[in-house]
């Protein structure tokens, strides 16, 4: 029956990765012995067989056009037999067995405006989300702040070392798409006003019981406004998380004057030395100041420099602060310690300082 009930293929899944592995990786799969970092942005992995593979790591803005992907493909064809990969932090890596190709790849990439770097103790690309480019719930832009912060810190990507790795991440709202909450420095978009309720539309667009249930602090109650079923928000109980807006479009929180950015520090994901931990609040609020968010870039640089000047080798930001204490962190950065820094949600008491051990 041509044209009628054609079989529609579904659930084929992703391509099998084996189709995309370079021959040297297929040959030495699981047989890598050690690696070295001959220069920032370049790794050489050596296999038990003696085979070597060079990886050139390149920073990208993550939001990229097909023109740029085609350029990557062209460079991979020229120097890497057509093979390349991306990393978990939005970098692209060119893989080659030919040592001489490393400098050539580097030159082409730099000429295109994409820096080589991001390996070893230093700063690699900022994991980030969509912001004003594509999301309804964004309290700030993502790509713009990332660009401004990386412009400011690019030396730590391309050349300068730091005491340890410093992972920066940005999420444009509390949904935190990405592992922002366990980063050395997290930049987090925040709302600071309760939702505005469009009483004409709540009942049309949303299910009232699920809207009430969505609020972590039980601030939302069903109510009748002008004869229409709707909800009310107990304003003092609202902590501006936008859970309600996520389930109900008739309750927006976005606001140019009240939205902005908070800064969190000292989280980590890796298990090396100390256990993984959450990032802690460093600055409760900075305003949205596009296009370059100078308050944010300055705060991030302050944290990086204070840590670089004071930490021991291998100490991540959180490990350094654990050693010297939070009073020292606030003193050295000059950030003001405010009421917002003290937790007041569930189990808040666990974060109080329950010891007489204090530094002078």
């Amino acid at each position, binding site marked *: 029956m041509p044209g009628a009930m054609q079989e529609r293929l*579904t659930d084929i899944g992703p391509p099998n*990765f084996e*189709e995309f592995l370079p021959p040297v990786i297929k040959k030495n799969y699981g047989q890598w012995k*050690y690696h070295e970092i001959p220069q920032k942005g370049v790794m050489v992995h050596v296999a038990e067989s003696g085979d070597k593979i060079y990886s050139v790591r390149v920073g990208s803005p993550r939001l990229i056009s097909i*023109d740029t992907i085609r350029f990557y493909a062209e460079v991979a064809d020229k120097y890497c037999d057509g093979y390349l990969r991306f990393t*978990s932090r939005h970098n692209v890596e060119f893989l080659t067995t030919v040592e001489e190709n490393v400098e050539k790849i580097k030159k082409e990439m730099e000429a295109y405006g994409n820096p080589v770097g991001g390996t070893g103790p230093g700063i690699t690309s900022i994991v980030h989300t969509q912001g004003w*480019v594509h999301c309804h719930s964004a309290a700030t832009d993502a790509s713009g702040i990332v660009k401004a912060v990386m412009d400011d810190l690019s030396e730590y990507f391309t050349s300068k070392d730091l005491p340890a790795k410093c992972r920066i991440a940005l999420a444009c709202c509390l949904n935190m798409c990405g592992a922002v909450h366990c980063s050395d420095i997290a930049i987090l978009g925040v709302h600071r006003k309760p939702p505005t309720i469009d009483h004409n539309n709540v009942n049309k667009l949303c299910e009232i019981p699920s809207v009430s249930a969505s609020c972590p602090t039980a601030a939302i109650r069903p109510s009748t406004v002008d004869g229409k079923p709707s909800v009310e928000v107990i304003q003092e109980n609202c902590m501006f998380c936008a859970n309600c807006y996520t389930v109900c479009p008739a309750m927006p929180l976005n606001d140019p004057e009240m939205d902005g950015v908070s800064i969190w520090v000292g989280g980590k*994901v890796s298990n090396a030395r100390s256990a993984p931990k959450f990032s802690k609040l460093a600055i409760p609020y900075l305003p949205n100041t596009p296009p370059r968010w100078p308050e944010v870039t300055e705060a991030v640089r302050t944290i990086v420099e204070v840590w670089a000047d004071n930490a021991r080798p291998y100490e991540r930001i959180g490990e350094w602060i654990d050693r010297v204490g939070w009073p020292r962190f606030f003193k050295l950065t000059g950030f003001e310690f405010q009421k917002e820094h003290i937790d007041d949600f569930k189990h808040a008491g666990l974060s109080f300082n329950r010891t007489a051990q204090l530094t002078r």
Partner: protein
Amino acid sequence: MPKEYKTPMLDELEKGPWPSFVKEIKLAAKNSPMSNDLLGLLERSYNERIGHWKHGGIVGVMGYGGGVIGRYVDVPEDFPNISHFHTIRINQPSGWFYTSDALRTLCNIWEKRGSGLTNMHGSTGDIVFLGTKTDELEPIFSELTEAGFDLGGSGSDVRTPSCCVGPGRCEWACYDTLKLCYDITMRYQDELHRPAFPYKWKFKMSGCPNDCVASIARADISIIGTWKDDIRVDAEEIKNYDKAGMDIFNDVVLNCPAKCMKYDAKAKAIEINNDDCRHCMHCINAMPKALRPGTDTGAVVLIGSKAPIVEGALLSSVLIPFINLDDEDEREDFFDLIEEIQDVWCEEGKARERVGEFIQRVGMGNFLEAIGVEPIPEMVAYPRDNPYVFYEDYYDDEEEDE
């Protein structure tokens, strides 16, 4: 003739050493009226300091409940070309390996049928095609299928699993992350494409405790490689690190969290008490040529991490302290357990309750009972210090009386 937008705010972000997303949008805007309108819209957001996107609504491809995120601009009269501008998530190959040909195929589809803008990659791990119209979704889907690609997850389903580069290029991989990621993805195709869970469910796989995909912070099931036997030591290479100027005592030995390393400064020799080693990776990271994980390898399985929404952020905690995922039987037991957990969570979990929150609500002890796993000390940082114990013997007796 596409409208020409003045973008002084965004132009500022074309300057500076870091690659510019504005340059990328402008590249795409040369061929795509959608990307051109996106540029105009973004400039407006920069001026007004507010976003202009509306909530999703249900859009997708036939037979799939996820993979497409609906997006509409709230000022379509001013930016008609992005009145719909939906995102498509495409399941990436394990470890984000590609050939140039595969990338070009994706670009060709997206040039014809979308904005020409992408995220390589979204933080879930998917390839993200950023922005197209509703009536392009079916054609894109069939062209992707022809090219061997499929959609990723979104909504309350198994989200696209992701993994670190593992045995592909890392000497520390303690199991085959690339293969396990592929196998899990293929096993759960139905659960990935047709949301039927209380909320999202994420698998992430890292080959060693460095956890390069941040699985412990953002996966419901975090699978992190580790080893059981001794750390492999190359004594000569330790001497070489010393010769090269490394401060082995301060930087390696004193940083060992288990205090299980001794250094003989004269002989330049390290002695490790492997019984006390916590498998943290620090010493190995510091001296990759001298130290390596053992050869009796497997993984720790942890459960329950998530970002703050709804009830607060959680890190994953230990469920299985060691599993050899290369062993067929242990692998099948693992999948049985996962499916048991999903059943219990689907049965008892509330809407928008991640499994970690579910465990917090019902109690880890009760959860373990429900899935038939014995409690062991590896699961806690310390036993409870709170004496409000809900002893159950009394209630159990009563139930029997009834």
